[in-house]
């Protein structure tokens, strides 16, 4: 494994850890936590610190260390989770996530908040001395005042049996480190048991044969002993038996059996000041959640093959029908089963790529909190439909547009607390982020209960910027759509949060490139809703199947505004070869797809052609085709691998009959038409084929 791939693994693991951290912090925030929740939070931070140390991310290690120290105080009940503490540890988790993110790129600046947060953490944990240095890995300050039960039964030490499972070694742990960790707690007499080691003939190199008997004397705190083994939970069989100074005094309370067998009894001995309903299960029973990391390339290949399987089924089906077989013959029944199976496989394979939006939404929670803090606004962030699954690539590419939109919602949508009070709203605004599957699409909504969009201001701004003319008459939807125009920003003062000039047009471009659409609704004083509608995967596209000469082509549905079969009088020639289509009084330039693609026209009469209005590069063009066949989802096949990019063509797809149809790139059409006209005017065009 190269260092790079190790780093990749580190970041992938950090993502999981931060996800679990955020999840557990949410439980704490909603008061649904128990001791295990705090332990899980502590473990997550500790693991990040440990691995970060291995890669030399010192800023990350330092911060995680102070964070961990504070969490340890909470864990050992020396610090109550007040609202202030809760806010601090949540902010710290945000900061930790940012530090991890920053570590990906060398030389990234340390997040601004790090210093202040560190100072606050140090203050909480009682000054820098109490925090110790990051190196004091296994030395946990002994609990000052032990609970009374313990002091009544002085513990002399512990007898520990450690039997590692193979997974312990596989995950990079070393029994020696555990043993030396114990050694720091008291006088340790380790003994390695080798009975289980077989002869060389039977030796399995992947097995774990060694066990240890560890006699620890002079240690009193069982929690400290358990802490040593905290990170090998589930990777070993562990028995910890306290050895009492005066044994057999109270038979029912002093267990002679190993702890792993009867953990509940032991807990009556162990300090347990916090009465929690559900105690953690014994370590041996805790199964690690098993996930599979697979190269996405492999999954893509599988998706391709399965798509082909479906087409293959359609081809056989058609051939069988043409051969005139009776419809209920055995072969057609078998073929039906084949079709069902193929579709089942397709769904299954697609599901591999699908991931719940949960992790993305959690990251967005951070964005909203930061935006709220930066603008001094009080915002509650609500998420819905976190379990909704979408394609992993899409998930990654949604992060930026969503960040932008949520910042906007807080910065421009939600009003300042004082203003909200004036208008009789609760001081704290709400930003709602939801995801849902709706008729073959994923719909993501961002709803705020802020001031809503100000139509007059939008119009005025657009006129100022020269995006529209002063006398333009726009529908409500068109006014809101101005937000997405390049160079448009309504922020009255440019804050460092949003309104940096990149604007919402970037959002729209990002969503469109995913084959999605953005819609806006808003009512003054009530708030705004941004709706993003996305296809389920990037591998398919909603398309309109059109006939162009002898060929079949696909227009992406996401850029189609409407289709028109106009009256003869609505089509006018402006200059020779240049036509416009009148759509409710507006003239739209016509692009003849047959001419553009060098294909014969089935009918020269304009009135027999169908016009598809396409919204591309913020301009509308009317694309004329011979006929419209159908509207359906098509599987996207790249042309680039074997051929190369073709201007005007985005990709290809395979139709039900096995033939190929080209998918038009709407953004390139008007440019292509212009360059073709220029070429035409220079010299008469040669026949294309």
């Amino acid at each position, binding site marked *: 494994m190269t260092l790079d791939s190790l780093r990749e693994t580190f970041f992938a693991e950090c993502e999981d850890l931060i996800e679990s951290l955020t999840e557990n912090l949410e439980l704490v925030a909603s008061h649904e936590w128990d001791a295990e929740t705090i332990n899980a939070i502590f473990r997550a931070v500790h693991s990040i610190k440990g691995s970060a140390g291995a890669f030399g991310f010192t800023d990350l290690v330092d911060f995680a260390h102070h964070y961990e120290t504070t969490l340890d105080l909470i864990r050992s009940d020396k610090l109550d989770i007040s609202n202030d503490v809760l806010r601090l540890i949540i902010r710290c988790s945000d900061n930790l996530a940012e530090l991890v993110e920053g570590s990906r790129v060398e030389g990234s600046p340390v997040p601004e908040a790090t210093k202040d947060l560190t100072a606050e953490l140090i203050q909480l944990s009682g000054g820098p001395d109490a925090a110790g240095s990051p190196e004091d890995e296994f030395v946990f300050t002994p609990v000052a005042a032990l609970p009374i039960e313990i002091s009544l039964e002085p513990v002399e030490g512990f007898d520990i049996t450690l039997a590692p499972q193979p997974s312990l070694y596989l995950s990079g742990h070393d029994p020696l480190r555990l043993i030396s960790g114990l050694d720091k707690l008291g006088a340790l007499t380790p003994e390695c048991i080798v009975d289980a080691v077989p002869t060389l003939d039977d030796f399995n190199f992947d097995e774990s044969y060694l066990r240890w008997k560890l006699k620890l004397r002079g240690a009193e705190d069982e929690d400290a002993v358990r802490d040593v083994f905290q990170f090998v939970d589930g990777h070993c069989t562990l028995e910890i038996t306290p050895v009492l100074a005066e044994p057999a005094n109270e038979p029912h309370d002093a267990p002679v059996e190993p702890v792993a067998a009867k953990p509940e009894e032991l807990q009556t001995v162990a300090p347990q000041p916090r009465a929690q309903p559900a105690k953690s299960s014994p370590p041996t029973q805790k199964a690690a959640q098993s996930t599979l990391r697979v190269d996405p390339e492999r999954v893509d290949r599988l998706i*391709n*093959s399965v*798509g*082909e399987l479906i*087409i293959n089924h359609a081809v056989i089906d058609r051939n069988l029908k043409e051969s005139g077989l009776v419809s209920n013959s055995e072969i057609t029944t078998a073929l039906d089963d084949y079709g069902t199976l193929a579709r089942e496989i397709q769904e299954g394979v697609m599901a591999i790529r699908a991931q719940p939006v949960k992790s993305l939404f959690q990251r967005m929670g951070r964005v909203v909190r930061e935006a709220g803090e930066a603008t001094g606004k009080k915002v509650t962030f609500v998420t819905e439909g976190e379990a909704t699954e979408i394609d992993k690539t899409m998930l990654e590419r949604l992060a930026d547009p969503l960040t932008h939109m949520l910042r906007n919602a807080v910065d421009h949508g939600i009003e300042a607390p004082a203003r909200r009070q004036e208008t009789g709203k609760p001081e704290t605004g709400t930003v709602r982020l939801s995801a849902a599957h709706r008729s073959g699409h994923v719909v993501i909504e961002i709803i705020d209960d802020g001031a809503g969009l100000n139509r007059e201001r939008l119009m005025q701004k657009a006129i100022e910027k020269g995006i529209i003319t002063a006398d333009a008459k726009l529908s409500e939807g068109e006014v809101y759509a101005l937000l997405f125009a390049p160079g448009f920003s309504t922020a009255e003062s440019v804050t460092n949060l949003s309104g940096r000039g990149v604007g919402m047009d970037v959002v729209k471009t990002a969503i469109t490139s995913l084959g999605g659409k953005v819609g806006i609704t808003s009512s003054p004083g009530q708030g705004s809703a941004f709706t993003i509608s996305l296809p389920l995967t990037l591998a398919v596209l909603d398309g309109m199947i059109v006939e162009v000469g002898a*060929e079949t082509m696909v227009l992406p549905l996401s850029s189609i505004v409407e289709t028109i079969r106009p009256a003869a009088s609505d089509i006018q020639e402006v200059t020779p070869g240049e036509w416009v289509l009148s759509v409710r009084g507006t003239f739209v330039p016509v692009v003849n797809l047959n001419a*553009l*693609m*060098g*294909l014969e026209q089935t009918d020269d009469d304009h009135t027999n052609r169908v016009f598809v209005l396409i919204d591309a590069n913020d301009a509308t063009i009317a694309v004329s085709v011979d006929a419209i066949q159908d509207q359906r989802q098509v599987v996207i*096949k*790249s*042309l680039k*691998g*074997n*051929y*190369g*990019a*073709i*201007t*005007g*063509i985005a990709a*290809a797809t*395979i139709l039900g009959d*096995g*033939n*190929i*149809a*080209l998918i038009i790139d709407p953004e390139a059409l008007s440019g292509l038409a212009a360059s073709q006209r220029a070429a035409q005017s220079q010299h008469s065009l040669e026949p*294309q*084929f």
Partner: protein
Amino acid sequence: MTDTEIADKSKMTEFVSLRAGGQGYCVEITSIREIRRWRTVTSLPNADKSILGVMNLRGSVIPIIDLAARLGLPITELGPRSVVVVVAIGNRIIGLLVEAVSEILSIEASDIQPNPTQGRDGNDGQVVGLVSIEDEMLKILALDTIVDSEAEEAA
């Protein structure tokens, strides 16, 4: 493949002989993936006349090139023996339309003569070697030159 490389090889190499534009060519068998019957292709807009279009090969979209046209010969008339030779060149899979595919030949490296016209004006190195089989001269094609010019056009 350069002439020296061919000359250095003292073992047998297998070639597939084929006809394009009325002339005999051969292509190294290791670069041939399969041979398919001709079926109608989807034409590509504004492409060179030697590019017939794209075809569906088990889910991959592959371009089909008229080999004769690509070699500067008259375009291939579709006949009963016309087939598409699917070849792999680098990472790319391409179909070549030819008049017919004849046979598999085992040719000793010493029987291959370098193309004496190579490097002259108008010869861009598509034919790298010549071999005489039963009184007919077969031209050994360098497939990578066919794709390279292809890539330039596509770009």
